């Protein structure tokens, strides 16, 4: 029995064990999940070791120059091990500080330059009728651009939580903002509906793939 067959058989069994969850939580499901977590974590550790630490850290310590450049990440990396001990976990804060600081900065730059400005520009370009050609396409583009613009603005407005206090003491949003936000929530509902449909299609595809693998393996194994 080849490795592929064994692998497929194991996959079949584990798939059925996971599917058993639809009947109810059971030990088979838990065994499959815990086994998956263990193997997945072990494989991830292997990948990190072979694809990250060895090539980027240890294999480049041969020369003095590289050692000087890597001495800081080396120290910081090992300082992360201090996180394992609550008593000295503070030692790892420095490495975490670098990690978080760099990550936050990259996220800031990406959000501002990569999303905010381009998407705002795209919302404005939707009304650029010059590139739409002529005839009905102009109208369609104008409608589409308007709808998308309204969807963008109203969706953002729905996240505007500023409110004031009414004369009776209750906290209420401005009626204008409230109406805008309600329309914005409609856009959000539409978007979430589409996303839900997409998620379901993805899940359905996964189900089909799993069932296909089971059926195909069974058919191949049995010889049907």
């Amino acid at each position, binding site marked *: 029995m080849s490795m592929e067959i064994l692998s497929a058989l194991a996959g079949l069994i584990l798939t059925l064990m996971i599917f058993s969850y639809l009947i109810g939580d059971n030990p088979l499901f838990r065994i499959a999940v815990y086994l998956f977590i263990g193997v997945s974590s072990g494989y991830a550790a292997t990948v990190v070791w072979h*694809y990250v630490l060895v090539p980027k850290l240890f294999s480049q310590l041969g020369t003095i120059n590289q050692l000087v450049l890597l001495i800081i990440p080396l120290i910081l990396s090992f300082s992360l091990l201090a996180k394992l001990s609550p008593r000295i976990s503070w030692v790892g804060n420095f490495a975490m500080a670098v990690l978080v600081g760099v990550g936050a900065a*990259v996220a800031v730059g*990406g959000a501002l330059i990569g999303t905010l400005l381009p998407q705002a520009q795209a919302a404005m370009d939707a009304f650029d009728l010059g590139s739409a050609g002529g005839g009905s396409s102009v109208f369609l583009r104008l409608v589409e651009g308007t709808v998308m613009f309204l969807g963008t603005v109203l969706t953002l407005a729905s996240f505007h939580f500023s409110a004031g206090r009414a004369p009776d003491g209750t906290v209420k949003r401005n009626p204008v903002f409230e109406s805008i936000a309600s329309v914005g929530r409609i856009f959000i509902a539409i978007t979430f509906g589409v996303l839900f449909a*997409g998620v379901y299609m*993805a899940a359905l595809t996964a189900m089909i793939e799993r*069932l296909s693998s089971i059926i195909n393996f069974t058919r191949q194994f049995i010889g049907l």
Partner: protein
Amino acid sequence: MADIRCPSCGKNNPDFLTVCQFCQTPLTPESTLQIGEKPTKKNTGELENILPDWLRDARQQSRDLAEEDAVQAASMPKTQKEEPPDLLAGLAFQSTGGDEDQIPDWLSSINPATQEKPSAPAIPAAPESDFFARFNKAESAPKSEPVQNDGTSFMGQGTDQPQDAAERDELSEWLTQTSEQLIEPSSLESDASQIESGWGLNIEESSTPEKESVPKPEEDLSWLRNLEATSKQTGELSTPKQDEDWQSGFDSPFSSPQSSEPEDLSWLNNLGRASAPEQPAQQSAQSQNDLDWLNNLGGTPATEQPASRPSQPAEDLGWLNDLGTVPAMEQPVQKPTQPQEDLSWLNAFGETSEPAQAASTELSSDHLSWLNRLGGTSEPSQTFDFAQDQPLERPPGAPAFEKASPQDDLGWLNELQGTSESLPAEPVADFSIEQDKPKDVVESTNAQHVSPFNPRGTAPLSAEEGTSIPEWLRNATEGPSMPMGNNALDQFREDFHIPTAPEEPFSWKSFILEARQADEEPVQPQSASVNPFTPSNDPSAISNQDVESLFSMDMPDWLSRTEPVSDESITQETAINAEEGDALSPADLPSWVQAMRPVEAIISESAPGIEDQPTERQGPLAGFRGVIPAAPIGSSRRPRAVSLTLQASSEQQSSAAILEQLLASETSPRALVSSPSVMPQQMLRRAIAVLVWVVLGIMIYTRSQMMPVSPLLPSDARDVTNVVMNISDNAPVLVILDYEPALAGEMEAVSGPLLDQLVVLRHPHMSFLATSPNGTALVERLLVNTNINQPDGQGYIAGQNYINMGYLPGGESGVLAFIEAPQTAIPSSPVLGFSEYAAIILLTDHADSARVWVEQLHILKQADSTLASQPLLAVSSAQAGPMLQPYAASGQISGLISGLSDAVRYELVNNSRPGIARSYWDAFGVGLMLAITLIVLGGLWSLFAGIRSRRAEVAEG
């Protein structure tokens, strides 16, 4: 000013009288402690016959109660705040509500220290402010005032905060002696010596807590000022050496006659642990309550035990009788149960246990008696000398009472009185008592190094002490009743040992701070509970035994000596008829008593912080803030409320409320319709699962391809084809696997057509990079399932036609690093620069991770014009497609294939290669139909079921 209350008529008589001046009834001289006579312990039973019937009964009741609670009281000092004082407990039963009025206000309001003052001739009840004003004006008052000042000064110092160096000097010694005894919070000892010295202990005890809790600098100093002023005016203080010396010591600091300030005597409240603040106000209003301050002497808080209590007046009178008759009562009944009772502190007189109360009682009785000697006693002079700016010159080793002759116990007080006629013996007596130590100190040359507060180290109470020192002081020297006091006194010593600054010979600042710290450390638990100024809570609060000791107290001589000043007033004052509150009229108060009257009444209850307290303007304490408590110390029992609320403006609070309301509305769970049961739900879920499995299984098993595929590609998918066509042959292409194994099946089906097309048409050198650790294993799987690396497929070979660069860690940081320098980030990267890639194909199943690539690549393209034409193709799962469409619309993504529907069409365009999508398509269609059907039908059923159930609920109400 000790008066002897007539057992028959109930009126007070000077202690020197053997027969009541009103009804000619014998005043039981045998029970009184004569001047110069050493107080002896006596059984209270001996006094029973002296007491009125009502008082006798009351005492008996109190004994009974005390006996019952004796055990508990010993263990739990301060449990009962609001209970009437032990001593008066019995009286409380008999006394009616009107008895409250029977207690003079000044008695209830005045703290233990104020007991010394009552000797002043009675002055019609006046507001406390007037009371103090009179103190300055009254001629006779000055006599008593200095004495009182002495007592008060030391009390004030000991209790709250240093007023003057001189004051400290005077008081330091006895404080030092008493400090040792402070350790004992509430000793139930019935020793006569302890009883005698108990007041000292109480004083000290009260002092330390005051320092900690409620410093009232101005008040203490104010009465001192009054004293000084009066002394200056009258010049009476000068006559007795003691007075003079003492007064001289105070002259410098308190030159201005500000004694009229009502606050002067506020410290008295603290001495007695009583929360004077509330009481004084009441007392001032009621002239009848003039003697209420005596209650406070015992540490009774005005707040806790308002004057309305009937028991207090009776008690007050009762102990006054004892004071006049009994020199030193035994402590038959040892009931520490009721520490908070107004007069319970009186028990402490005979005992070392309760500092403030005992101090107050003894002050009222004993110290008054010794005040008589002030005139003739040389000790006072020494004390005055000592008081003069000199810290404590008594050698540390020298016992404070060494020179005091055994007769000095109380006899020396008579001498004092003899010397200074004008001066009332009482205050001087207090001072002299305090200065028993100073005497020695003056003689000793090393006085500066000896702290006046040095309790025992310098003055071990030996036999000499027993002789020289009054017995009632002995306890104070022997053992500290207040545990805190020792620490505080130790700090006193240190500060005192460092008389560096002439202005601050005692370095009160440090003293205060250290004393507070020291008190807080070991004693805090006790201080909190045993705050002498907080009558109610003191663990060492006066017990029933203390009540007994009250009766054992000797009648202060000075009470009787006050008569010369104004017999009528004294009698009116002291004739506190427990049964008749009318006996006391405002006019009965002696001027000096009025002067000493606690000013706390005016002071608000809440103890101000140091910042709130005024700064001393005169004297050695000039410039210090909060050195002397400005608020009624008695209220210190109640810790100042600290607002834990966030200091936010109204606008901020309103904004927070708005946000909270909005969030609550958003997150508040809707009322759930009661679900019938769990089983139908499980059955429904199982039914759906079985239905899906069966339907899809049939479609997959049959390998159905009956559902046609539309050849019409979406616009975004068309863009992908266009990009592929524009890629040059054998160009390096980066394929990013940004999906998890969960969606590997879908992603392989969706990306298969594109990769196949790309490989078939352009034969690119593909570099695979995974953004998840498990993604590295998916590369081979992808290539296998798409037949790219299969021999019967495209025949791509690893390392030659494609390379798996592995895992890119770091998320956004890794993406940025890889984009900037591929080989630096991934050493196995075949390209040096990112621009070398002809196209970027992003296989993603999650919009957020895809967004990172889109954003960073967009930034890179803007920074590097050479990358502007580098296409980014996205192949996404159906779940991520809708969120990536805006990027496709904005041009940040060159082309997008989303989900199986796009893939199957693209696959159709690609000559149905590799065919994965098509193999899923029928099952996908059937699955969608099934899902739509179930959702619609089930949704409608749920909708109607929900409406029906809601109506049913509404109908049911």
